[in-house]
């Protein structure tokens, strides 16, 4: 089932418009990168898709069982081990005890953390924490996975690896992913489609398709990155006065 956003608008109280007339369709199994400068309302858009906030105007169509969500900060519960964090997600979904154990083990293995299940969040590195958070959001077993700058706080080496990791997991699980970022390279690296959001108010101003060649040909990827960056800067320059 596709995700459809129609003329979506959002305003907080009497403040300025945050989102204005956002239109987009995201097909099932698609990986879409939502790109924009700071303050363009991309997180707000994600929160609306997750059902954490209600839109002021317009309509949206999301899967009825809701969406899984991954935050910039891993937001693991510090009183639980990595495995228990994943098991809690399964429990809140209504899974039985035996199923929880098996499934949590599988998910830990999927994110290559089979040996770290009994560690607590503070004993894990930032990248490991984010992988546990990814496993936890996969534990929700929703078709739609929303990610709000999940790798922004990581070091570059870890981030590069997690890009590969996320691409692999996306291919293995067939999820629909909406990935919010302010990093053009990251958007090009991960998305099949890159949607550029304007700032104040946020609106989809342009989209680019990223082909499989862009994943391996750095020249091609660099060219597209440059093109998107130029358009993004044009958008930022509009606010200079």
């Amino acid at each position, binding site marked *: 089932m596709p995700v459809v956003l129609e003329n979506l608008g959002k305003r907080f109280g009497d403040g300025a418009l945050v989102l204005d007339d956002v239109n987009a369709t995201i097909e099932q199994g698609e990986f879409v990168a939502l790109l924009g400068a700071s303050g363009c309302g991309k997180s707000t858009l994600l929160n609306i898709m997750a059902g954490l906030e209600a839109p002021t105007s317009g309509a949206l169509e999301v899967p009825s069982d809701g969406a899984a969500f991954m935050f910039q900060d891993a*937001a693991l519960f510090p009183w639980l081990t990595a495995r228990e964090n994943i098991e809690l997600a399964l429990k809140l979904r209504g899974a039985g005890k035996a199923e929880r154990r098996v499934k949590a083990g599988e998910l830990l293995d999927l994110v290559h953390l089979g040996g770290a299940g009994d560690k*607590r969040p503070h004993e894990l590195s930032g990248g*490991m924490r984010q992988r546990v958070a990814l496993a936890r959001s996969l534990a929700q077993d929703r078709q739609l996975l929303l990610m709000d700058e999940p790798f922004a706080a990581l070091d570059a080496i870890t981030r590069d*690896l997690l890009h590969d990791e996320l691409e692999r997991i996306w291919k293995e699980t067939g999820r629909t992913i909406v990935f919010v970022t302010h990093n053009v390279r990251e958007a090009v690296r991960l998305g099949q489609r890159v949607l550029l959001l304007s700032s104040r108010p946020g609106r989809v101003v342009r989209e680019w398709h990223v082909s499989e060649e862009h994943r391996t040909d750095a020249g091609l990827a660099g060219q597209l990155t*440059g093109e998107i960056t130029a358009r993004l800067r044009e958008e930022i320059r509009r606010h200079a006065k």
Partner: protein
Amino acid sequence: MPSKFLSHYAQAAEPAESSLIPSSDPGSRHITAALTRSSTGSADLRELEAGLDSLQSDAARRARIDWSRILLPVAAIVVLLVAWQLYVSLGIKRRDLVPGPLDVLGQFGNLWAEGKLQEAVWTSLQRGLIGFLISVAVATPVGLLLAQVAPLRRAFGPLISGLQVLPSVAWVPAAIIWFGLTDATVYFVVFMGAIPSIINGLISGVDQIPPQYRSVGKVLGASRLQLALRIILPAALPGYLSGLKQGWAFSWRSLMAAEIIAVGGSIGFGLGSMLNQGRDLSDMTIVMSAILLILAVGILIELLVFGPIEKRLLRRRGLLAGSTR
């Protein structure tokens, strides 16, 4: 195939440099390096991640017994006892007004032999604990409710904070009028003493929860009750625990006040009663014994119950590093 991977990066600079980038802004020409797939398959990725994980995780450090934790407090007590004995030996005050540590130790022996000491400690401890547990059982749901429901919090919050300032001794006369000289009087005073601290501790614990946890709970599909029990309560545990600690301290103090004032009737013989008896008999050694016992019970509960629980809680959450505990 690391060489292939490297060549991507090497190539990256050139084609992008001379590409279609509109050069109205010279800054945009620096956007050259792009990200491409950097590992060569699942096995390679697993290995890379394992290497990075072990580089980024601390090696486990083994805890050793820190003798200064035991020796320093013991030394402090010894110093105080010696100073006390020295002062008494100087003979500045009459011995029956200011007895020395040895006189008090002798009185301890007497009270022990008569069985009064054990009776007083046991009676007070039992009452203190029962009163405290009742307070916890009532304060916990009330605190959660106040912390979670904004209108209730606005309505009753100031009152609860105010009650914390009110000395619980103030409830003793009222309690005697309502319940007479019975155990109910003692429990009532303990209850009124402990409950505001526990509620306030829980509320401030809930206030300090990162807002992210609630969002995660909602996204994971927790119901209101599940959110309260599975996420809010455990997340608020450090604040709740310090509320409990303070609540216990207030229980114990209120209990002593109640026992000193309300004597006789069906109220048993507790440490407060012992203190009061010492005053009636003008026997300073009994008074000192009672004071030291009250203090000792307080310290023991902290050392044996709250201390270990708190330490374990903070260590599990990684909050202990760098503290002077």
